[in-house]
């Protein structure tokens, strides 16, 4: 969190919150540099970006609105199947696939949001999980459409903008994913810095107070849930398009749990926590799994426990605390 202004115009402490800062620009410059620095790992890079977007969509719910979910894969999966099926049907233009995926996931998100506004805590975990299990089973049963256990075959993408075909090295995949993820990030960033975003933080901080200041809380939750679902749907579509394949796993419980772990690892309520968490998680898995495949989960578990115990607010929160600590020491001297 940005340190609070103690001098100067206090009004600016609210007005200036949405300004782009240097570390942010450096972050995005780095994502572009990755394309040149790691040409052999662009497929992994694309996966990191996609997972980051997925975690970002969850951050709107968990980090900003204070909701919980163990079923966010529902929207990721619906998006993946929507984009995959569209391409399989012969319409391989990628952006229309993203739009369809966002719309399909938004519809499912809006429908389930009516259940979400009625419950809290554990009940919310169960409902989000239940919806995802339902969809997973549905996709399994409708194997004549989805391919069931074998996955959705025959997804062929047309070149991006009619120019850049998807290649084996993931060059197009990476840049395409980066462009889309950046655009979606800007959307989410604008959202959390808007009056609507402030009201989401109000819901997170105290749901009981919201009606007392005239805020229709349920309608706000329905809106953010739908938006979050749409973003998750775009992430799912990106995976389907860049890998030209959709497996049942996109709707799995594991994917729901993993994205929550990634978000908590990186730090909730910061947007960047989602992206950093995805990078640490997936690059870490890649490195550790290639060194010793069996022990990856051991290290993941250890990392999770350490971060939650010692770095409240995840990796980013921990870094911020460290920075503040160093600053205080320097000021004290």
């Amino acid at each position: 969190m940005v340190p609070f202004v103690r001098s100067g115009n206090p009004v600016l402490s609210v007005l200036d919150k949405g300004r782009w800062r240097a570390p942010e620009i450096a972050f995005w410059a780095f994502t572009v540099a990755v394309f040149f620095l790691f040409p052999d790992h662009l497929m992994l890079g694309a996966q990191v970006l996609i997972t980051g977007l997925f975690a970002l969509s969850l951050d709107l719910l968990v980090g900003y609105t204070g909701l919980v979910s163990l079923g966010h894969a529902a929207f990721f999966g619906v998006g993946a199947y929507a984009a995959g099926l569209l391409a399989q049907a012969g319409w391989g233009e990628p952006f229309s696939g993203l739009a369809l995926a966002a719309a399909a996931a938004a519809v499912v998100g809006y429908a389930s949001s009516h259940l979400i506004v009625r419950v809290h805590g554990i009940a919310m975990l169960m409902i989000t999980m239940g919806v995802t299990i339902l969809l997973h089973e549905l996709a399994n049963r409708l194997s004549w459409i989805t391919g069931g256990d074998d996955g959705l075959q025959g997804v062929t993408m047309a070149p991006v903008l009619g120019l850049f075909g998807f290649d084996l090295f993931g060059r197009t995949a990476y840049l395409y994913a980066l462009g889309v993820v950046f655009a979606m990030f800007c959307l989410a960033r604008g959202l959390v810095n808007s009056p609507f975003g402030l009201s989401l933080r109000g819901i997170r901080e105290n749901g009981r107070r919201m009606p007392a200041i005239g805020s229709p809380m349920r309608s706000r939750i329905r809106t953010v849930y739908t938006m979050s679902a749409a973003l998750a749907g775009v992430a799912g579509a990106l995976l389907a398009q860049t890998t030209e394949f959709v497996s049942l796993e996109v709707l799995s419980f594991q994917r729901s749990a993993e994205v929550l772990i990634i978000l908590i690892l990186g730090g909730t309520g910061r947007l960047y926590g989602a992206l950093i968490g995805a990078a640490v998680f997936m690059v870490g898995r890649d490195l550790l799994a290639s060194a010793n495949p069996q022990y990856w989960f051991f290290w993941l578990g250890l990392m999770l426990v350490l971060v939650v115990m010692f770095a409240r607010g995840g990796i980013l929160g921990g870094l911020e605390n460290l920075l503040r600590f160093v600053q205080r020491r320097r000021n004290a001297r």
Partner: protein
Amino acid sequence: MSTAALATEGLFMNFGSLAVTRNVSFRLPVSARHALIGPNGAGKTTFINLLTGVYKPSAGRVLLGGADVTATAADQRVKRGLSRTFQINTLFPDLTPLEAVTLAVCERRGLGGAWHFGLKRCRAQVEEAYTLLERLGLGSDATRRTRELAYGRQRLVEIALALAAEPRVLLLDEPAAGVPARESAELFEVISALPGDIAILFIEHDMDLVFRFAERITVLVAGEVLCEGTPDEIGEDQRVRDVYLGSGGHA
């Protein structure tokens, strides 16, 4: 009789077989400074919750400016000018008072759901919020996190949030609860300095404050109105002495 700012007619509230509000008919005129007193468990907070729409009454009506709002949702009643504070701080701990009041101002102006533009385009709302905080003496605390503020300051943020809705009726549920005696008098000075056209109903246990600031007093006992009158009348009333003030009465 002119239209009351807020009124109830035959209000009942049952929790299961327990009747916590019984046949309460009550009138709060425009510009009133009205206290609601009664022993613990008399149903005072329940009454506030019925007025604001947290609870739906088992029977009876709530009228706001003459209009029936019994079935109106809590947030809509706020939009119609009915605002409240809470006995126990019900604030936004991690927001600054400025952010919290800006949020309330945005909600009042119908901007709370606006996501297509940033807060940087809401200078008028933020400035209005800051002006309100300054008026309550919270200017220097405006950009600190709410949970870092002293308790008495947080009680003021309670009032600031309620005022941001520009109420015509303000319900204060023990505004000075938990605040040291000296500060609670200051708090009531702030309250009595509020614009005269706001009708105020407050619950308070400190009888000195009640008799100093209320123009009229309603005594609630076991969910029922025992009596209503001016401070003098209530001070003289033998029934009130018996059930509430004790034999000594108000000094």
